[in-house]
């Protein structure tokens, strides 16, 4: 099929609806947020329209810097874990029969129907001392007495990886299904073992997909707010938790907006950097 570039205004018409949605539901709210982040906070009531840098100034401290660094580190770790688990899994899944694939994909889709709250509470039960998995380990004699595995950093990471994994697999799946099987056949013919073919041929061939998936999971995990609260200690709280505290409980909208703008800018910068590095390596 030959694609004609759009010429007339009517050719661009199908773009109008998505563009409108983008303006109404993204550009307008985001601009409002940027504007509010410069407003003046009045602790006794709300805020007054103004143009001050107080809110950004308050954010630039060691305390908030370390919370931001922790949030970014957590999101990166979640992204890496998800892709490390999901990529080999999806690859093996595409090698399975059609029926097996369907069953797995339906199962994964059903995990997506769980809300963050349900995931959080389920994991907090699973990792608890009174009803958790350590009771099973005690029953089979591996442990002396049940222990609580939460709140801890490990619990937060587990919960977040669990939540993001179905998305990761669903994003990787189309690319892996479409992967030319002759590539692997050629590698095998030339004497590569299956793991070697996987790491030396399949993985590099899908480099861009992997990078794109990492970025997607990173952005997805960065906004996480509930799981760090349910499964973690206060030191495992992300910046999103503090933003919510300011916005909802302190009604300090300007400061919450400033923190959110900062978070968006930093994550955009990181995504940009990743793409830039990727492109440069590609050019070599």
């Amino acid at each position, binding site marked *: 099929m030959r694609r004609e570039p759009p010429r007339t205004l009517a050719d661009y018409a199908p773009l109008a609806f998505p563009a409108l949605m983008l303006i109404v539901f993204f550009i307008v709210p985001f601009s409002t947020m940027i504007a509010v982040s410069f407003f003046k906070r009045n*602790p006794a009531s709300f805020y007054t329209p103004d143009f001050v840098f107080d809110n950004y100034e308050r954010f630039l401290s060691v305390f908030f810097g370390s919370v931001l660094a922790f949030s970014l580190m957590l999101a990166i770790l979640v992204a890496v874990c998800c892709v490390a688990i999901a990529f080999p899994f999806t690859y093996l899944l595409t090698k399975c029969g059609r029926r097996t694939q369907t069953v797995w994909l339906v199962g994964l889709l059903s995990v997506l129907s769980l809300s963050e709250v349900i995931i959080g509470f389920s994991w907090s039960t699973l990792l608890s*001392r*009174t009803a958790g998995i350590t009771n099973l380990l005690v029953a089979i004699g591996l442990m002396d007495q049940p222990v609580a595995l939460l709140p801890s950093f490990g619990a937060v990471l587990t919960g977040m990886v669990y939540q993001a994994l179905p998305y990761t697999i669903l994003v990787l799946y189309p690319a892996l299904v479409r992967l030319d099987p002759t590539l692997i056949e050629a590698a095998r013919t030339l004497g590569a073992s299956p793991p070697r073919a996987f790491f030396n041929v399949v993985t590099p061939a899908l480099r861009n997909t992997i990078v794109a998936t990492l970025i997607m999971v990173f952005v997805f995990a960065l906004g996480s707010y509930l799981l760090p609260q349910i499964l973690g200690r206060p030191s495992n709280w992300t910046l999103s938790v503090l933003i919510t505290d300011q916005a909802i409980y302190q009604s300090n909208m300007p400061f919450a907006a400033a923190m959110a703008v900062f978070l968006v800018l930093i994550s955009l910068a990181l995504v940009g950097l990743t793409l830039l590095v990727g492109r440069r390596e590609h050019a070599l």
Partner: protein
Amino acid sequence: MNSILKTSISRRGVLGAGVAAAGMLAMPSVLRAQDKSLKVGVYGGYFKKSFDSHIFPDFTKETGIAVESVAEPTGEAWLVQLEQAAKAGQAPADVSMMSQVATLKGQAAGLWQTLDTSKFKNYGDLLPRFVNKADDGTVYGIGAVAWYITLVTNTDVYKEAPTSWAAFWDKANADKLGLLALVSNSFLLEVTAKTFMAGTNALDTEEGLDKAFTKLAEVKPNVRLWYRDEAQFEQALKSGEIPMGQYYHDVTGLAIADGFPVRSTFPKEGGIQDSGSWVITRPSKKTEEAHVFIDYMSQPKIQGLMSRKVGTAPTLKRSVLDLTDEEFAAVSSEIEPIIPRYDLYVSKSDWLNQKWTEMIVG
């Protein structure tokens, strides 16, 4: 329910005038209710459910004012919504139940109407702490509901009830406590001041606050969970996963009634008494009905009913109430309560919040 009835009327109207008339005749009470109505904001969940089933139907029967109850989030989210709506001249609710800090902040922002106290029959019987007065003496809020936050324990884990808030500081309770996560809803600074510093007046100065923060930081190793969501702690308390903490006296009472191994103790320093006030938002045009509503809610009869059915502490003085000693003890205590320093959460809110967050996160 009311909205369903209303839509059925409008559908009949489309079908034809005769049918519409028949439909209206069949529901005269709805017609009358539509003449006078009031949107009342109450905390969503347990409070709204209790009010909808025990309080509002009788109010409508007695006054002919239909109540549409609006579920509002606790904390200051509702204040933010009311404020945004007021800027557009809208009132998402005519009367709202507001937390004390939100009531003070709303007053500072000019969000509430001044109340005419001559319309409240039992105004003189209200405990002074349940009347919100502005500096010039005008009244803008009347106590709606009051509740206690007490020292709760799991009876399987703690055979003996603790007697003092000092139990939080006991090294034997390492990693066993569930405490509220925010400075402005846990009131732990007040608890610290009352337990170790001879009263909440010690928090008047910044040195006093610093001292309270330092003392409170000693509790940190004992805290397993800093909770924002009540269900999170309640479940852990019932199972014994987190066997001690601070929690709501009324909800703990419900858990005891359901047979869970928990208890609520008024420590010798007193339980923390928090409360919500009724306020009328400025854009509301239902001032008349709203006053009738607040008057109705402040009667001894209704305060008693609420203590029995909803589990709230009464806002009126004990002598005018018809509660038995046992009923009174279920919702309140003769021990002088710890009254939170709401003024601090308005005048020093950002400073306190920053210090608090750094204390628990750091």
